[in-house]
């Protein structure tokens, strides 16, 4: 099923295939524990079928990888920028609740643009503020998605705008 003999192998491709196979075997076992072979209509029947298919095709991939003696590609799978940026994004997600959406996103945008583009402070600042304002208006104000608040008491500030100075506001 797997015909690309002439293809160049990527670094870690064999290992990735093995990991996929191991994961699929674990999923098959986990599917079996849902209801065993109790009934054709059991909640475990479909997961077992799907994971069995996964085990079978993952085995084909692993066998195909083993047969192929391709030249190893010199290409870097995980360049430094990707690792750094991914770490930054994870830090951003982790900061969403304690810091709140607005400060966390602001910091993320500034740092990410500095990391990737070396943009000037002023430019980063303008882009970050403008895009955040847009996102906030669309998601929080129009679509009423309550974003994590963190250290900025948005609700209280919004309520103030709404009820005190301008009672005719919607």
């Amino acid at each position: 099923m797997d015909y690309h003999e002439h293809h160049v192998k990527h670094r870690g491709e064999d290992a990735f295939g093995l990991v996929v196979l191991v994961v699929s075997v674990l999923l098959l076992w986990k599917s079996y524990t849902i209801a065993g072979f109790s009934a054709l209509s059991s909640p475990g029947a479909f997961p077992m079928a799907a994971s069995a298919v996964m085990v079978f095709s993952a085995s084909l991939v692993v066998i195909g990888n083993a047969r192929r003696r391709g030249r190893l590609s010199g290409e870097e799978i995980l360049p430094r920028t990707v690792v750094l940026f991914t770490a930054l994004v994870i830090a951003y997600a982790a900061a969403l609740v304690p810091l709140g959406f607005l400060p966390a996103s602001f910091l993320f945008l500034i740092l990410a643009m500095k990391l990737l583009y070396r943009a000037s402070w002023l430019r980063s600042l303008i882009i970050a503020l403008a895009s955040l304002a847009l996102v906030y208006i669309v998601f929080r104000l129009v679509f009423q998605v309550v974003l994590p608040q963190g250290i900025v008491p948005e609700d209280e500030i919004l309520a103030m705008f709404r009820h005190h100075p301008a009672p005719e506001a919607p």
Partner: protein
Amino acid sequence: MRRLLVGAAALTMVVAGPVVAQDFPAKDLQGIIQWGAGGSTDVVMRSVTPHAEEVLGADVVMQNKTGGVGAIATKFVYAQKADGYTLLMGAENPQLYKVMGLGDIDYSSFVPIDILARGVPILVAKNDAPYGTLKELIDYAQAHPGEVKVGSTGPGGLPSVVTAMLQSQTDLPMTAVPYDGDGPALTALMGGAIDVMPAVLGAALENIKAGRIKPLAVIETEANPVLPDVPPVTDTLPDIATYLPWGPFFGVFVKEGTPPEAVEKLTAAYRAGAESDDFKKLMDERGYKLMNLSGEEARAFLDRWQSVTSWLVYDAGIAKKSPEEFGIPKP
């Protein structure tokens, strides 16, 4: 930092106008709906809340948090502060979580603001079914065991409870085919994929009127004014009356420990909402019984519902745990 900013905000508010404790609500509220957009819980909540908002003088931002038969929303609201700013807009399901093994939280961990309305269950059949009454269905099912396919919405759902009620009175061997909700199950009934279905009257009403499905019995002690010709179930099985009146319900709740001022304000707001003509009309037309219960009355209703239903599903063998484990008394 946060406290500082709140302080600053509060200070400006003091300048702008006096803020005291009874000024609930000081900001917008959140309403967490247990079921999906377009479902009956959603429709009820979205139609009553605009009236309550007028009384409250604040917006209630409603969100659907579906999943886990409503358990996801219930747990979410329970995890929030008991300040009255997060409302749980739910149906009857949490009252069965304990016996169904879906967690330890039910409405006893919440304060009922208003039990708005109750649905009336009705037993309907596909048009070309060889039976036209409940009696004929029972005879047919006994003569052809397992052949009658009854729609279900999973263990603990209305169809499973009504089927359990019927089976507690007579031998009724049917095969339950599960669907995602009463909407899809009624569609399947019209397409002939299932033969009978206990549903809430409101969901089946229009199809009955159009003659696409036929009603066998209402699960009540008397006929319903919307369908006066459909006999009550007690005509055929009189002893079933011990479980009745029974039906799914909709209510608004806040977490236990919410300050009494907030509960009072919210109760007044939702009571006014439930008394509005729009809402009454909507409920009447859909065949729901308006309840508008709060305080002790609401609590008593919730307790009776839980005790009747928990024991019913337990005796029918679809519960995972005994109601006794949780101190739920026998009805």
